[in-house]
């Protein structure tokens, strides 16, 4: 089973995955014209902030199984494509009740007028695993856009095994190095250290210093 896996420590918040996702789900599939289409294409991946400056996480549908959104959908709009093992939203059946969004553990279902093929009304919009791209041998648009290795596409267990090996190595190297699975390069570590320090200083001011 191939899926999009996230290495959170690799995300540097550039949001290029969001842009690529919106383009991939536009009518034109062209980065130069997609932003000017009506309805405007929307990203289905959402880069959110961490607890300190300079940390971020690309949040998207995890295609859960069983999926809470599928369980609660009253019209069967939200359904599992067993063949490709992804959760899809059928805009023609969607009544925009938002039950799926309420139960989604990741809050990644949004409501928009869809660009390609869907009815011209606001319907549930979510990651479709780039099924069209994948079936023609491409990788999902968000993964293609990510040059930092935060989003990777592959067999879930293989990706987990690779992460597990890194984690083991890090644990063996230093029993205290538990915060991040892989050691950051010095530049990224310095960049993040300033973010943590600035955030900490602002927290101190909030709590009454000086």
């Amino acid at each position, binding site marked *: 089973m191939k899926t999009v896996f996230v290495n959170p420590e*690799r*995300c*540097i*918040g*550039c*949001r290029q995955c969001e842009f690529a996702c919106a383009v991939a789900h536009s009518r034109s599939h062209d980065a130069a014209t997609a932003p000017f289409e009506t309805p405007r294409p929307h990203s289905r991946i959402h*880069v*959110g*902030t*961490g*607890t*300190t*400056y*300079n*940390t*971020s996480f690309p949040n998207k549908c995890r295609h859960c199984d069983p999926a809470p959104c599928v369980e609660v959908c009253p019209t069967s709009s939200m359904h599992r494509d067993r063949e490709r093992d992804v959760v899809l939203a059928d805009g023609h059946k969607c009544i925009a009740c938002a039950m799926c969004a309420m139960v989604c553990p990741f809050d990644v279902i949004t409501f928009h007028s869809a660009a390609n093929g869907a009815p011209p009304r606001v319907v549930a919009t979510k990651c479709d695993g780039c099924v069209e791209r994948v079936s023609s041998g491409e990788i999902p648009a968000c993964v293609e856009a990510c*040059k*930092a*290795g935060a989003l990777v596409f592959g067999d879930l267990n293989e990706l987990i095994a690779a992460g597990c090996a890194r984690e083991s190595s890090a644990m063996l190297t230093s029993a205290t190095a538990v915060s991040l699975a892989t050691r*950051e*390069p*010095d*530049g*990224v570590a*310095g*960049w993040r250290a*300033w973010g943590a*320090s*600035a*955030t*900490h*200083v*602002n*927290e101190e*001011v*909030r709590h*009454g210093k*000086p």
Partner: protein
Amino acid sequence: MASHEKLSQLSINNDARAMIARAREEGIETVWDRLAAQQPQCGYCAMGVSCRNCSMGPCRVDPFGDGPQKGVCGADADIIVARNLGRTIAAGASAHSDHGRDILEVFAELAKGETSGYELRDETKLRSLAEERGIDPTGRRPNEVASDLAEAMMEEFGTAKGHLSFSDRAPDKRTKLWKTLGIDPRGIDRENVEMLHRTHMGVDNDYVNTLLHGLRTSLSDGWGGSMVATELSDVMFGTPQPVASRVNLGALKADYVNIALHGHNPLLSDVIMQAAEDEELVARARELGAKGINLVGLCCTGNELQMRKGLPMAGNHLMQELVLLTGALDAMVVDYQCIMPSVTDVAKCFHTEVISTADKAKFTGATHISFDPRRGYEIGKEIVSHGVEAYANRNPERVRIPGDTVEMMAGFSVEAILGALGGTPEPLVEAIKAGKIRGAVGVVGCNNPKISQDHGHVTLTRRLIENDILVLVTGCSAVANGKAGQMMPEAAEMAGPGLKEVCKALGIPPVLHMGSCVDNTRILTLAAALANYLGTDISQLPLAGAAPEWYSEKAVSIGAYVVASGIYTVLGVQPAIFGSPNVVNLLAAGLEDVVGAKFAIEADPEKAAVMIRRHIESKRAALGLPHLETKDVEAPSEAA
């Protein structure tokens, strides 16, 4: 983080907090909302490894090492970071130097007698500047001398001369070093243009070479464009002398016409101050029910006027939207630099008229009144008149002016400081030698919403003066320290015993206001004077610089010229260099062996204070002066 920060985290000031609370209540967007909306900000850009200098790109280098390591042209992270930093310095230096040129052009027209509202107010300084350039003023009329001086300075903007006269103020050791390194600034505009050339694809592909030119570019600002701005402003508007003033949003008066002067250039605002006293305009203000016309300053235009005339300051960079939220501001007059495009949006929520005045800095939604020095006074009156008429539209029920002002002192030009010392740096040098004053630090630069407003400036300054270090401030830092009550002679009580004794003897505060951000050149001039007095180089003196809350390209240029002049500098906000460990190593370590000074980056002002104190003690040790060992300068966690 995010959009739900507590007010207390955004600013240390009660006036700011009250207005941010009002903005939230009324759904008015401010800089803090926009910062939250921008999170997360792009790491490629923040680490300096994205390049959009050509259309084979845009490119980026993966800082983790797995993805692309070179742009399409082949530039690696080192080259891309150096190119970007070089262009940042060139933009900052250009801003300062173009400001200097604007002052110089009016000065030249004044010399020809073609202006209205201007005069040569400091003829002593005019003569000494002329003599500095080999122009003999003896027996000549001031405007003739001014004309020759203007021409000589104009030559330094181009390449005709190939040398900047002001750089001769630096000690010989320093100017020789610059020549040896090939970073002696040759022309004010030239270095900026050359930086744009070098960072074009396929020109300078050696990051060290690019960064050395970055230093030269910044020197053309510090010892060139900015210094022209400072010195000629003194000749035209008066060299600052100690003056009492006030600061914070309480500077606005509910029953007066309030006009804020915002931006950086004193050319127009000085004339506006004259125009605000015009009897006709004051009478019209009274006719509309106001008691009179009240001018307040914002950012460095405000600092220029506060330094020379004691103009009360409404605030620094992050106060520019908040001053509008008082509902009591009738007009905001802007020139250029650091004026957020959002001011016209916030002004729309009130009756305030935003008036732009520089043809190179227009704002959608503002009234544009083009500045013309030949009709300076007339234009000044027209602008004030707009403010007076806008008063009639003010809704008194929406007026909320938080709190009372804090008293502060301004006006410490180099001339004023030397004057207070009795005309020679000797008493200051003796106090430093004896250890009463450990050293001096310029705490300068902007506000940045990533740091609690003014926390960096105020905390760092406080820790330094507590440890007998004299602090020199400019720009946003002066406003921050003024608001914290650290800029009155009485603030000597906050200082350590040695500094307190010196301040009390001279009747000065432990934190000296040296002006606007172009006036950082006053700090250079003072440092050079001290080094020359001692027959040494600036880099050997117990000095440091700090920009705890910097945000702008101009600040990068300032930081670079301060380090290139031999002064260790601590930045509170990281520049976009972390994508290249080589560039980081060069700026934070290697430069020490090149120019005798380096950069450090530290967000926490408590820690920055310790770093600076240790640096100053090490310089004292090298000079053979009484000093503390590094281990005896406590880190904050060790302190009580």
